[in-house]
């Protein structure tokens, strides 16, 4: 297809926490207003709204009814996508590139407390997997164990990875868990589902995020240096799967290939400066490095041990602390996208960005394996 011509004109996110005092529609209203202000776009200019939530995470059926008006949808086109923040951004891009809209708000919020394990279990089929209590923790653990066996990774490798994320989040004012746990503390935390320790597993975080996407014409008119969406990719993995295939995350590779082609990226580690991957459980990050093509199969932990993924290395991964430190079930994808946008614009304290391109990969791992869907976005600054 032709080059993607959609820009991010503005964005806003809350500071994520383990508690929430407002309703989802209130949170969405506030971040949307903030994002519009930052975009220098008025509510009247909004053509459409996309909300990125799942009914189950909202505790309401047809929750888009409550949420789309809070993002300015009254008298306008709206849609609700349940497959995550990146998929929702792509939906907005599609309507803009199709000529149906010039300005689209994409928003999401996490404001309902519920038993996450239970919902994950109810995302499995009722015939084979639900009865045995399968959920995202147990299935992530099994995938991690498989990776350990295949590539001789250890619990210690995973703890090191967790600590890297906690260290990054300690410097991120928007992150939920800012405790900066060390790898010793991670290893000392109780084992929840072997090989996953408590601190290898994401928390449940509350907050909201909104982006304003605009056509090229508006971007050029209003902004002198917008953030461009230069590529996207989406992919899936089959639910009835062979787990020997699953450990390679082929759906993510499929999505990444698409995104790289569109953004004309040939050497990922050279051309991409920072990456956010969805690491609801630490070990998954290693599988994602490989699936995204940053290294050979099985070399993920070697890269980690060589320190290539620390702030001082070539490729910065999970500067936000990733999903391990901030896990908005609905809004995580948008949150990490906004964090990368802020990074590109040098708006983050403690960080200096010298790159032009960043990548965000978002997956629905909170539902568990197999059957995951992946969305990849590449953002670019062109000045």
């Amino acid at each position: 297809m032709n080059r993607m011509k959609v820009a991010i004109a503005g964005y806003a996110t809350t500071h994520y926490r383990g508690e929430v005092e407002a309703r989802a529609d209130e949170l969405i209203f506030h971040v949307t207003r903030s994002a519009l202000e930052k975009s220098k776009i008025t509510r009247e200019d909004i053509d459409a709204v996309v909300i990125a939530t799942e009914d189950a995470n909202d505790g309401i059926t047809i929750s888009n009814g409550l949420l789309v008006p809070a993002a300015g949808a009254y008298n306008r086109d709206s849609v609700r996508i349940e497959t995550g923040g990146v998929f929702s951004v792509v939906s907005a891009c599609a309507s803009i590139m199709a000529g149906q809209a010039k300005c689209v708000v994409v928003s999401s919020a996490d404001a309902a407390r519920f038993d996450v394990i239970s919902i994950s279990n109810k995302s499995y089929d009722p015939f084979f997997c639900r009865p045995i209590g399968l959920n995202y923790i147990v299935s992530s653990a099994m995938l991690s164990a498989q990776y350990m066996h295949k590539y001789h990774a250890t619990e210690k490798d995973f703890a090191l990875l967790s600590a890297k994320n906690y260290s990054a989040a300690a410097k991120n004012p928007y992150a939920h868990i800012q405790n900066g746990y060390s790898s010793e503390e991670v290893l000392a935390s109780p084992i929840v589902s072997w090989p996953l320790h408590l601190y290898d597993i994401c928390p449940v975080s509350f907050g909201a995020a909104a982006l304003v996407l605009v056509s090229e014409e508006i971007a050029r008119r209003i902004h002198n240096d917008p953030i461009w969406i230069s590529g996207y990719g989406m992919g899936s993995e089959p639910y009835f799967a062979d787990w020997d295939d699953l450990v390679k995350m082929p759906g993510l590779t499929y999505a990444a290939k698409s995104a790289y082609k569109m953004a004309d990226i040939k050497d990922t580690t050279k051309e991409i400066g920072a990456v956010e991957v969805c690491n609801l459980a630490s070990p998954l990050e290693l599988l994602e490095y490989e699936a995204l093509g940053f290294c050979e199969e099985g070399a993920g932990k070697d890269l980690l041990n060589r320190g290539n993924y620390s702030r001082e290395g070539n490729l910065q991964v999970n500067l936000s602390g990733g999903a391990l430190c901030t896990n908005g079930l609905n809004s995580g994808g948008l949150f990490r996208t906004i964090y990368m946008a802020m990074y590109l614009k040098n708006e983050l304290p403690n960080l200096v960005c010298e790159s032009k391109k960043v990548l965000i990969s978002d997956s629905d791992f909170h539902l568990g394996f197999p059957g995951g869907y992946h969305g990849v976005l590449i953002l670019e600054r062109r000045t």
Partner: protein
Amino acid sequence: MEIIMKKEYSWKLDYSVTVGEVYTKFYEGLKARKILANKCGKCNRVYVPPRPFCDICFIEPLEWIEVDPKGIVQTYTITYQKFENLPNPPYITAVIRINGSATSLIHFIGEIQHEKPSELPEKIKIGMSVEPVWADEREGDILDIKYFRAAK
């Protein structure tokens, strides 16, 4: 200082799902202590659990076969924390490839000798051979298999 109120509620909704012809046949097999699979006529993949259609060829796998119920452990975990409505810890969940099936089955592993729960990860090997242990009373459900154990 104003207090923001919270409203609590829960969904207690009853569901009844149709099992369908293919899974019904599989369930009937379990009742009879058999593991039934179906096979795609085009790619020859064998499916446990059986599939209503071959995902690769998108045609109905019409051939049914009874497979030797032994399987190989592809991966596993031991859960040590108690969660609502889930089994009491510690319990072992494993991904098992039943005898040449193209897809994997997930189930419990039991009868692993150990003194302390922390020993369990070492007692299970990826690649070990397992066989089903059947429940005494079976009603046509995946739990007609109580768990898998190391094959004798």
